[in-house]
């Protein structure tokens, strides 16, 4: 016992033994006439006071720090684990054409958009993972980011070899759902497939302006009524943006009218950057979406031919691979696209006496702010960063709801027939009836008399 006590007393606390500390404490208690220790807490206070003033004080960690230590580090551990898993993901065999997003991101950075290298690397890994998931995938590209109120969406666009046949109402267009999208809110989590949308949903989405909340299953409460949840609206907006903004250099693709297929041109050489900086050099790759919500016009068999023709005129289809020069101009600008040149704009000549420039061309869409296409003389890409809204030049004017139905006209009131009361005398309708009534009354009177 004695030894243990000695040991405790000699334990050191920052070069001061416990024994010495007790001596100090006792001394202070004696010295200070006003010191009145009522409980252990006061004693502890004095002890701390002495420690602070003798400069051998270690401040205690606050309760927050100690209790939340696990909360603080646990997310970091999760993050590191997921990241490690993603980086080590080995791709077996991929028969798809995947965009080299890591390299294209450096292009994006030159024009002032894009991610940092780490995120770009993670996105590249995600692209590979998704290509692995479905053997039907023909090509995959990073579509962009849709910002939302609570949590943003990252979107990857994928084209398939064979379309998945989902049961859909007959007025829907398969071609509309040609591009398939995967969405996630956290790059290290799983990617979710967005559902295919119907014609009605596409039609309705044109009239709605809505900032996404971040919850895929949220009900959309807007006028006009949108039948679907946030994931349907998200898909519709993504499709609209793709069909309006995905560009390709002129001459890369060719469109066969008879077979209605898109194919690669036989000989294609990427034009020089100087040429790329004009609107002539670019065409829209996907088809134009009609106001009806389809790509080809739907002839509703229940409507009459005149109505159909009228609808067709207000909703004309547009030719495939249309040049962007013919886009409807936005306000006072010439055309819908702003073209800017970044980077090294110096013209060089290479060994074959051809003009060479390392500049990067940026095409920005006025109508969809946030949609950009960039290119240099080797590669090009289109992305979208934004809230998914069109550029509203005029104040938002909600659609007025339909007129409320009027009340029906009132029916004339008549008193309710009551068997105890005799009904009021009514005028007989015709002469015949008058005669018959009179004869009946005379017959009754005669009977009563008898």
């Amino acid at each position, binding site marked *: 016992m004695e030894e243990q006590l000695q040991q405790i007393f000699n334990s050191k606390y920052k070069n001061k033994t416990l024994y010495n500390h007790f001596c100090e404490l006792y001394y202070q208690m004696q010295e200070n006439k006003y010191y009145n220790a009522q409980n252990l807490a006061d004693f502890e206070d004095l002890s701390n006071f002495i420690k602070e003033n003798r400069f051998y004080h270690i401040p205690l960690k606050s309760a927050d720090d100690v209790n939340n230590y696990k909360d603080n580090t646990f997310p970091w551990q999760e993050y590191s684990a997921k990241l490690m898993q993603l980086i080590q993901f080995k791709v077996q065999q991929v028969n798809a054409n995947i965009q080299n997003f890591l390299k294209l991101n450096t292009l994006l950075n030159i024009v002032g958009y*894009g*991610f*940092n290298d780490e995120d770009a690397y993670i996105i590249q890994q995600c692209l590979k993972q998704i290509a692995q998931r479905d053997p039907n995938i023909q090509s995959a590209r990073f579509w962009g980011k849709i910002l939302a*109120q609570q*949590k943003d969406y990252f979107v990857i666009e994928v084209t398939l070899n064979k379309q998945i046949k989902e049961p859909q109402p007959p007025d829907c267009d398969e071609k509309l759902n040609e591009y398939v999208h995967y969405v996630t809110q956290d790059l290290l989590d799983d990617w979710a497939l967005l559902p295919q949308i119907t014609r009605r949903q596409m039609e309705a989405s044109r009239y709605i302006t809505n900032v996404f909340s971040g919850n895929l299953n949220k009900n959309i409460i807007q006028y006009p009524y949108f039948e679907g949840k946030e994931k349907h609206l998200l898909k519709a907006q993504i499709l609209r943006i793709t069909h309006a903004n995905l560009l390709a250099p002129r001459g890369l693709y060719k469109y066969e009218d008879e077979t209605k297929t898109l194919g690669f041109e036989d000989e294609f050489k990427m034009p020089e950057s100087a040429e790329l900086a004009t609107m002539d050099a670019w065409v829209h790759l996907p088809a134009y979406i009609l106001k009806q919500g389809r790509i080809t016009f739907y002839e509703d068999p229940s409507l009459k031919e005149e109505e159909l023709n009228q609808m067709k005129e207000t909703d004309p289809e547009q030719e495939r691979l249309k040049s962007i020069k013919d886009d409807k101009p936005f306000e006072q600008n010439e055309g819908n696209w702003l073209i800017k040149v970044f980077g090294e704009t110096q013209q060089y000549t290479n060994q074959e006496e051809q003009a060479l420039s390392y500049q990067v061309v940026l095409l920005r869409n006025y109508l969809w702010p*946030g949609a950009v296409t960039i290119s240099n003389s080797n590669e090009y890409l289109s992305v979208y*960063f934004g809230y998914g809204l069109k550029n*509203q030049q005029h104040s938002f004017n909600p659609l007025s709801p339909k007129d409320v139905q009027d009340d029906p006209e009132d029916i004339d009131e008549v008193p309710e027939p009551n068997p105890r009361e005799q009904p009021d005398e009514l005028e007989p309708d015709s002469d015949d009836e008058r005669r018959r009534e009179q004869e009946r009354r005379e017959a009754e009177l005669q009977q009563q008399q008898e």
Partner: protein
Amino acid sequence: MNISFNDLKFVHQIGQTLNLEERMRLQLAILKIQEHYIFDEVLFWGRVEGVEKDYYIALGIQYKGQYEFPLKKFFWSSNNYHFAELPKYNEEFAQRAETLREPFTGQHEHIVFRTDEEINFEDSLEIPAQLPAKNFSELERLSYIVQSIEFQCASIPVGSYRLTPTHELIKTTFKGVTAELKNYQHFRQPIRKDKQDLIARDEALYRPDFLDSLVDDTPYNQWSVQTDSTKRNITIRNLIWPGYLGYNNDYTFGYAYFGDGIKNSDFEFLL
């Protein structure tokens, strides 16, 4: 945002960034501001995109010697990276400028509104000189927008600054906050009564949240607080001024604006 631009990775959340040329030239240009003015801190405030050229805005803050709130001074530059002070704007037209939806052209002399006022002198013996009407130029629009954004959006996390007993603001060691809206406050002189009272009573010296809180901002839901995969990098965005981004993690905090300078006036209809 600090001009070392280490924090640009937060801005990548909205998909914007500064390329190498911009970063290098901005660093030099912002340091150059220090030659003529004395500030405690000179920060990069943001980039307002225009059709032809962009505007870069820098902010100089003076803490010492300022009572209750530090002095802020804004500087602007176009693509030539030569900073000049942002001028005052004409009050009457400034309100209209807030709801303009046209993009900035990039030319700062571009006239946004014509004032149609002529300044006539009273009959005097000399021939009255008629001053040319001073129209509301794009530079004034920029000035108004920048100051509006600063007033309505600029936010810092709770616990980043403290009020000294002499009512000066100083930066404290910052340990990070959890990702909730109540942990952020406006970086401006408090206008709400409860915070003003707090400061008048000197209670603000002991509290970390003595500036206007973001929670009381109307319309509600205009702020979006998000964390990234690590859950320690928090960004806070405003939906009425899309392009504004405040950020913090356990070591740093800051804010910046990367956008086109147009207010989202329809915000109330969009949710």
